[in-house]
């Protein structure tokens, strides 16, 4: 973490984000994470950007929907698909040129979802030691999974400390919906 991983290698110019783009879009993602924190949700915010346009954004909506899979990325991906439907454009052609900006490393589930939709690049803040799917727990982003869409590249570590501090602030509060922790058997 903290370094750009395997960048530039075989990405076509045009959807590899510049430093200016990363700064600009990550600032918005952090605003959304703050909004989540203020609303009692896990503070993760994300944006999906296609052709310099935000086509999806999301924050965690797990408590609100009572669906534990409604992470920020899943919410944003649904918006991208909805944006394509409204504009009557092929989701496939949009997704392969869309960058995800997210404050925390996508979890294993979200990493697989990003692959299934062929998102090529993910820019994220801090790693996710609990669930991370881009190397922290499993590396779904680059694994050989021929039936699970395409691998994607990660740019990790942007404003990582800030993202960690927000998560810490959240986990210090009590999550009323979390199950009571059980002692580990092993």
């Amino acid at each position, binding site marked *: 973490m903290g370094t750009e991983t395997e960048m530039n290698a075989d990405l076509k110019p045009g959807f590899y984000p510049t430093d200016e783009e990363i700064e600009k879009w990550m600032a918005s993602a952090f605003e959304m994470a703050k909004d989540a924190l203020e609303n*009692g949700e896990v503070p993760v915010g994300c944006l999906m950007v296609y052709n310099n346009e935000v086509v999806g954004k999301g924050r965690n*909506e797990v*408590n*609100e*929907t*009572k*669906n*534990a*899979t*409604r992470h920020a990325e*899943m919410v944003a*991906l*649904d918006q991208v*698909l909805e944006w394509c439907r409204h504009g009557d454009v092929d*989701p496939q052609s949009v997704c392969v040129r869309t960058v995800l900006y997210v404050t925390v490393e996508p*979890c*294993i*589930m*979200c*990493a*697989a*979802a990003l692959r*299934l*939709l062929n998102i090529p690049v993910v820019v994220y803040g801090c790693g996710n*030691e*609990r*669930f991370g*799917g881009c190397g922290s*727990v*499993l590396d*779904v982003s680059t*694994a050989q*999974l*021929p*039936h*699970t869409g395409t691998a994607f590249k990660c740019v990790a570590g942007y404003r990582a400390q800030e993202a960690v501090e927000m998560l810490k602030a959240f986990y210090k509060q009590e999550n*009323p*919906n*979390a*199950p009571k922790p059980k002692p580990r058997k092993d």
Partner: protein
Amino acid sequence: MEPQSKRRKEAESDNADSWVALPVLSDQQSQDTELISAFAAPITDKKETSRLIKELRCLYPLTGLQHIKRVRSRKPADGLHSPEVLVCLVSDAPDVDLHSESLAIDSLLPSNSVGLDGLGPPFLVKIPAFPPLTRPQFQVASKHWPTTFHEDKQVTVALRGELFSQPQKARMQGYMEAALAAARAGGGLGSGQEPVGAAMVDPKEERIIAVGHDCRGGNPLHHAVMVCIDLVARGQGGGAYRFEEYPACTAALSLTSSHSKPASETSKTIARVVDEGQPYICTGYDLYVTREPCVMCAMALVHSRIGRVFYGTASSDGALGTRYKIHTQKDLNHRFDVFKGVLGQQCKDLYGLKDPIKH
């Protein structure tokens, strides 16, 4: 919520012997026995046994190999009754020439460390590197050198395919039949759906909570498992997907659900429900799904705190056995049991309908 007609149930009920639900165990539980080389030596005078064990343990404690028994007694059938003691690992004695015809015991033991009385010439053995976790592993390990074994009886019974009674199997079959019926209904809609179905079950009440099928024609991420999880949320007064076009995706309304409440009150409602001992999302529920979940769906089940998962047939990028074993993944905060093979043939046959490559 009874998805199958009585007649169909009776017609298929004699299939309960046609399938076995086998556990999908962790790599540690299912891997072959790894062996390492060591030196052992016969104890020629049994009266010296306890002294030899004590002194050898002091010199070569065999750290990390607590499962290895220090002494094995040869079976009388071998004709030789003398016990044998493990001296050290080959890696503990790096200067010893393994190819030398006659290995001397004092080349393994620095002078004055161990009294040599009652100890015969050393020889090479292979010993199991890790403690056996299952009975099959224990049986293989014991052929090489005796080990301790803390048996998990449930795993032993499960590996024999005998964990579930006939009445349990009949119920399991009914749940998988509901998933199969949903898979057929979804696959029949055309427009990109894959023939996959899932049923969420409350095993305490023996009740189906939700039945769903693959809806990826409408949204590529709406796999049957994701659909079922959202249907459970819907049954609890939440949910995020739309199901107007999919009449075969249904959820039973939970008695404690309260959809009439405004959104601002919903999290309070969950908190109250949890206080009353009601499930957290899918806590304690069983999922029956016709094919092994993908990575996204498997992790969604971790997030939903699923109780157990039963699937019919494996899938090539599957994450509960084939490509990953997410249910046994260390570092994740929730683990669960997975069984495969419930109505395996019927689940496999779904792909006869279309696109046999993808599964």
